[in-house]
């Protein structure tokens, strides 16, 4: 008797413990080995780009919160940058500093979730995840102090920010700045040089430099391949040219590099926040911007370095109070296009780890 084997198709998602939202992968397996993978998007499609055409320029900001919902601050900022470019709005000094502080804190908070859920996907039973949520809580408390919200902040405005910081904010920020390096050290001690993590993440899911550039990857996924590309440095927006910070790059482009880069970026973000908190000036927090912005007809593209990569808003104005077209460049979606080529040939368990190392947010992929 000869034994016959055949590949079988398995649907990972849309409801699956480790798809980071409602993402579906139709995976063809030969035993444990993935022979084909077909990503299926769209379960979280809310038509945000179309909705934006019906709203005023200020009214779109809450929509941008709901793109990458673990990093709403940077989404707000990216949109506001683009509106400011379109309408030629100036931003006061203090608002710029607040924007930088908020986006860098947001980067730390988002990276904490990314790294935590990456470890969860590796199978470290919730310990790193919960540790990182503990620290994220500190940052979210800061945000709550300023904006009253804990997830979708709706904080940035064209021409500034919505509220000034309360007076207890800066001392609380100093406290967080003091403790955060200790927390990061704690994760490093817990898992950085773990043999099992090496075995699971090193050399797994390699994304080559050429391919990363070809698909338009950005953020930690691109820098993991060794490409030194960070919008904060190559096209400085806001006041990033005033701060000193490094851009960590990986060497191999494997899952381990991507995880390392997120940790290193947290340290760099702390540096930026420290400098910004020291230099922050007084003054107005928002320039005089009318309630209904009517930018001149034209187009503008504003982009920035979000935790997941380059978030960009392409706005076309016809001179009315609502944009004629609003296109969103979502880094998670761009990064995901490499998924199939990276995963085919690895095992089911690697699939989860590789997918987890992208740290996508479905709100951004589907929009």
């Amino acid at each position: 008797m000869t034994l016959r084997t055949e590949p079988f198709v398995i649907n990972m998602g849309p409801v699956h413990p480790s798809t980071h939202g409602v993402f579906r992968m139709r995976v063809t397996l030969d035993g444990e080995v993935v022979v084909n993978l077909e990503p299926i998007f769209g379960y979280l499609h809310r038509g945000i780009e179309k909705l934006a055409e019906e709203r005023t320029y200020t009214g779109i900001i809450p929509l941008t919160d709901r793109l990458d919902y673990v990093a709403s601050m940077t989404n707000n900022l990216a949109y506001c940058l683009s509106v400011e470019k379109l309408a030629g709005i100036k931003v006061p000094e203090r608002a710029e500093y607040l924007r930088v502080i908020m986006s860098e804190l947001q980067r730390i908070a988002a990276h904490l979730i990314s790294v935590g859920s990456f470890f969860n996907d590796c199978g470290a039973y919730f310990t790193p995840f919960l540790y990182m949520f503990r620290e994220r809580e500190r940052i979210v408390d800061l945000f709550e102090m300023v904006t009253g919200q804990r997830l979708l902040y709706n904080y940035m405005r064209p021409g500034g920010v919505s509220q000034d910081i309360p007076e207890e904010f800066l001392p609380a920020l100093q406290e967080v700045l003091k403790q955060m390096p200790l927390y990061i050290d704690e994760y490093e001690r817990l898992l950085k040089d773990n043999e099992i993590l090496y075995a699971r993440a090193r050399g797994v899911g390699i994304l080559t430099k050429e391919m990363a550039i070809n698909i338009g990857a950005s953020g930690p996924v691109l820098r993991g391949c060794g490409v030194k590309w960070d919008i904060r440095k190559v096209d400085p927006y806001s006041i990033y040219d005033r701060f000193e910070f490094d851009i960590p790059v990986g060497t191999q482009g494997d899952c381990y590099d991507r995880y390392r880069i997120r940790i290193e970026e947290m340290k760099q973000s702390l540096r930026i926040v420290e400098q910004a908190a020291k230099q922050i000036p007084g003054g107005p927090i928002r320039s005089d911007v009318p309630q209904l912005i009517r930018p001149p007809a034209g187009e503008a593209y504003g982009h920035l370095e979000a935790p997941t990569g380059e978030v960009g808003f392409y706005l076309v104005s016809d001179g009315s109070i609502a944009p004629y077209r609003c296109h969103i460049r979502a880094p998670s979606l761009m990064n995901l296009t490499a998924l199939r080529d990276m995963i085919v040939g690895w095992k089911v368990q690697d699939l989860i780890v590789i997918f987890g190392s992208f740290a996508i947010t479905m709100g951004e992929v589907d929009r």
Partner: protein
Amino acid sequence: MLAGLSNNLVSHMKALPPDWPGNIWWHWVIFTIIILVFFLGSVIMFIYMERRVLGKMQARLGPNRVGPFGLLQAIADAVKVLMKEMVTPANADKIVYWLAPAVTFAPVVMVLAVVPFANGASLADLNIGIIYVVAISSLSSIGVFMAGWSSSNKYSMLGAMRMVAAVVSYEMPIVLALASVVLIAGSMSLNDIVIAQQSYPMLLMQPLAFFLMFIAGCAEINRSPFDLMEADSEIVAGFHTEYTGMKFALFYLAEYGEAVVMSTIIATVFLGGWRGPFLPPWLWLILKVFFVFFLMVWTRTTLPRVRIDQLMSLAWKFLFPLGLINLLLSSLEVLAYPDGIPWYFIFANIAVGAALVMLMSRFYKVGGGRVAVG
């Protein structure tokens, strides 16, 4: 033959509890009750302990609402599970699907029959106790495979395949580790092994065997970092994805029951079982069992999960050779000192064990990786 076997059994049982007044059937009934109480009590306490210790280690609280300190949480969960609807998938192989939980659960309890709770106090002190333990404890993997196969669910199937592969591989290091202990103790009966640990626990004389046994034991009972069969972030719940209600509860019980059994065997064989000063013997056994389980919970909170091919290569390329070397060394020691190995060999064994592990981990390559797909 059967009559001979039962006679043999009866004579052993009769011989066994030296301070026991008389009737073998009373002995049987009472020890069955003791084992069931021990088993169920430990399982409930294990579940509670695991959740509380996990909570403490993960900077959260764990269950603390039901009863004092949340002690009754496991019972509340059991009641909830009992009232759940039992769902059978439409394409399931009904008979196999129904049988699987029982087939998984029964052997787990059976292993405890040979564990001594005090000197000679066990249901049956078989003179082949170790073989009995090894043979019965691997039976439950049949039930797991039945569950995975009959659920007609691909996640279940994957989990069941992983389970069978793991159990078959990790039997080897366990047997090798236990074999070297048997050589030193000079008997296969668990009670005799405990008696042989009069001056020092086997952990000191056989550190390498303990190391192998602990790792392979964790893998055999699906404890993290080897919990690939029910890897929650990958294949949902593995072989029991489709199970609900009491059938699920049986799998859950069996899972923790296996942990109880494995901890009990390790505590008996390596930590001196019921031996200990001041406290009554059965309490010592229970304390040691909980200590071993604490180690397992600790590894679970700390380590990520290994991959299936790494799991296999760890068994065959790392633990198996170490087990063979350990067996060789132990037999040389026994050959040189047939009347008992002198105590100073403890240091030699610990040093040799550590050196061997270091050396092996230097040469050991995990292997595996990307497969070319045509």
